[in-house]
């Protein structure tokens, strides 16, 4: 094998696949990246796979002699990331796993392993395909990923539930204390198994979707992205990149029924003003229990945010608001409010509440269809 590419390109693509390389591999070869240099197409492809998440990416290189082998991911990226700009030559003997890396300043030899034992990324023969516009996919991910549970014992709640039907897609994530739902429209679907329009719902691990978000942002393509599903796998493919992920098993909670239809209080505030005030409050709130109290005053048309961090200090902010309904005092985890508000991209947000112990809903006014439900914190003296 012999190929020439730039340090920049190799480094960028290595860092993408490295994120799918497990830190504690169940088999030694999984600690490696699979490197495939194809002479005919002059493409170099890299693969990382932890048996659940798989990332494959390829780029143009000058392939003088094709070949395939695996190299230790961490070692390789640690070296390549420190190499100077410019061309790199990767050179390996035909049946050897020792690769020589030559750059302007020096040369390194790295011992790898054969490619025979490296597992193939899953493929889906039958199953369903949806073609998603990039923007819609990014919106869906941005608006839901933050609300997944980071607690691995919570299984399906560590993922995002994605439902697809003829009208569009719906992304949902919840950790049990808040729920984010994003609806996107307008997509083409195709079902190889039948004539009906594709209709399915799956739960995809948050980790895989975070990688997907990162990859799409780095390499934005104008073309819609093909998303394939079957019983156990998700495969996303675009341009020269592919991401595969095992799906999370188990029934996702029926979240629709949790969203109240009617509210007795409603307020509209400037999103940035609200965020800045909450961020200042959070400085003190984070010292203690992260709780912020909101006092909605209909008469004054303002919301008073306050924090009382026992033994540390207290704070108070007033945010002008359009309030209808009745006055209310309600408390939240300030982090939950901030994460939701930051995922919106509108100038104004609407907040709807009933009582101090029932779910409240935040929605961006205009633009995307997003519903963010937050459970309050109950305060008892």
């Amino acid at each position, binding site marked *: 094998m012999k190929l020439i590419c730039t340090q920049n390109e190799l480094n960028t693509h290595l860092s993408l696949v490295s994120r799918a390389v497990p830190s504690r591999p169940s088999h030694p070869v999984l600690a490696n990246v699979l490197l495939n240099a194809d002479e005919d197409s002059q493409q170099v492809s890299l693969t990382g796979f932890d048996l659940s998440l798989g990332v494959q990416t390829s780029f143009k290189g000058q392939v003088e002699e094709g070949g395939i082998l695996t190299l230790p991911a961490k070692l390789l990226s640690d070296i390549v990331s420190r190499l100077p700009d410019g061309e790199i030559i990767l050179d390996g003997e035909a049946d050897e796993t020792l690769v020589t890396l030559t750059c302007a300043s020096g040369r390194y030899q790295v011992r790898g392993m054969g490619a025979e034992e490296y597992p193939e990324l899953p493929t889906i023969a039958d199953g369903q395909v949806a073609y998603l516009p990039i923007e819609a996919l990014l919106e869906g991910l941005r608006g839901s990923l933050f609300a997944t549970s980071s*607690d*691995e*014992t*919570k299984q399906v709640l560590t993922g995002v539930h994605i439902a697809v039907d003829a009208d569009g897609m719906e992304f949902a994530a*919840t950790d*049990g*204390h*808040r*729920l984010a739902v994003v609806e996107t429209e307008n997509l083409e679907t195709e079902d190889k198994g039948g004539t009906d329009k594709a209709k399915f719902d799956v739960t995809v691990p948050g980790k895989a979707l975070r990688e997907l978000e990162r990859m799409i942002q780095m390499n934005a393509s104008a073309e819609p992205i093909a998303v394939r599903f079957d019983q156990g796998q998700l495969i996303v493919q675009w341009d020269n990149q592919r991401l595969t992920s095992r799906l999370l098993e188990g*029934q996702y*909670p*029926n*979240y629709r*029924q*949790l969203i109240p239809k009617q509210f007795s209080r409603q307020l509209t505030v400037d999103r940035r003003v609200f965020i800045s005030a909450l961020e200042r409050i959070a400085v003190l709130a984070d010292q203690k*229990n992260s*709780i912020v109290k909101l006092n909605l005053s209909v008469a004054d048309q303002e919301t008073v945010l306050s924090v009382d961090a*026992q033994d540390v200090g207290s704070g108070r902010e007033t945010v002008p608001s359009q309030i209808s309904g009745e006055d209310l005092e309600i*408390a939240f*985890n300030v982090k939950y409010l901030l994460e939701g508000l930051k995922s919106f991209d509108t100038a104004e947000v609407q907040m709807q509440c009933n009582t101090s*112990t029932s*779910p409240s809903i935040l929605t961006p006014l205009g633009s995307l269809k997003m519903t963010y*439900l937050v*459970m*309050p*914190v*109950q*305060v*008892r*003296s």
Partner: protein
Amino acid sequence: MDAIRKIIHIDMDAFYASVEQRDEPRYRGKPLVVGGLPQQRGVVAAASYEARKFGIHSAMPSRTAYQKCPTLIFVKPRFEVYHAVSRQIREIFHRYTDQVEPLALDEAYLDVTQNKQEKPSATLIAQEIKAQILQETGLTASAGISINKFLAKVASGFDKPNGLYLIPPDAAVAFVETLPIEKFHGIGQVTAARMHELGIHTGKDLKQWTELDLVAQFGKVGHYYYKIARAQDDRPVEPNRIRRSIGAENSFAEDLGDRTTILTELEQIAQLVLQRLTESKATARTLTLKVKYADYQQITRSRTLTTPIQDLETILKLTHELLAITEVDRRNVRLLGITLSNLTPNNSDIHYQQLTLSFKQGFTI
């Protein structure tokens, strides 16, 4: 090196049990334990001296205690009373010094090198404190007096109950040399058994080992063993030590491989941790499960809740969930532990509770 310190360790005798016997004449002179009931799989929090004769000790499952002594009296803990007594004895300590480091409700270190009454004799102070405790609370305490915390603690346990023991500075090294290693504070049964296997039976044997070898053999705690074998302990008495965590752990003489046994052990540990949590009047938000496998590899797995952890049910639920992401199904276990952290004192009148979405379909959070 600074001037020689004067450290007193005061330890109430069978504290909870003695309080119960003080308040209920019918309990006096009888084997009694404070703790959970055997039928509720409780654990012993404290055993009276009469109960100890049957081999009953704290942290033992109440069932086992009952089997050892069928006439045993079980009393539910009354933490408010213990707290009140604890405040009384701490107030007595502060008559002598503000350098008081409470270790539990019934135990504290005092540094009386400088003291409010300018008494030169630490032994005299210890005698006075014991007398005042007896007069004002009707309970007995044991006192150990020496030049550092380690020796003071060993000394207070030397002559229990109602004891007073002094290890003078010039006798410290010789005292430790003759001390059987199972009497060393910080060396538990399992470590003691391992030391015996290595031919270490007394402080003198322990002293033969280099610091490097002790660390290689026992890990970080080896540094501490090296020092105490030489009667050295420079830890200061810390009056404002803030408790950041509450925990309990148990190492097993024989590695555990069976899931049911592991769960039973964890339940006992959970009971102890809960008792300590209640005793310290706090709630926690984070639970950490510690597992040491047979090959000494140690892992911890934690979870943090938005709601306070304050009951056995929650502790057990979290423990089981965390156990599911360990390798106990495939690897034998030599130590299990549960620690609660992220503590909030209970003295606040306001309670906050993060509310949870109510999923249907049997979905629980």
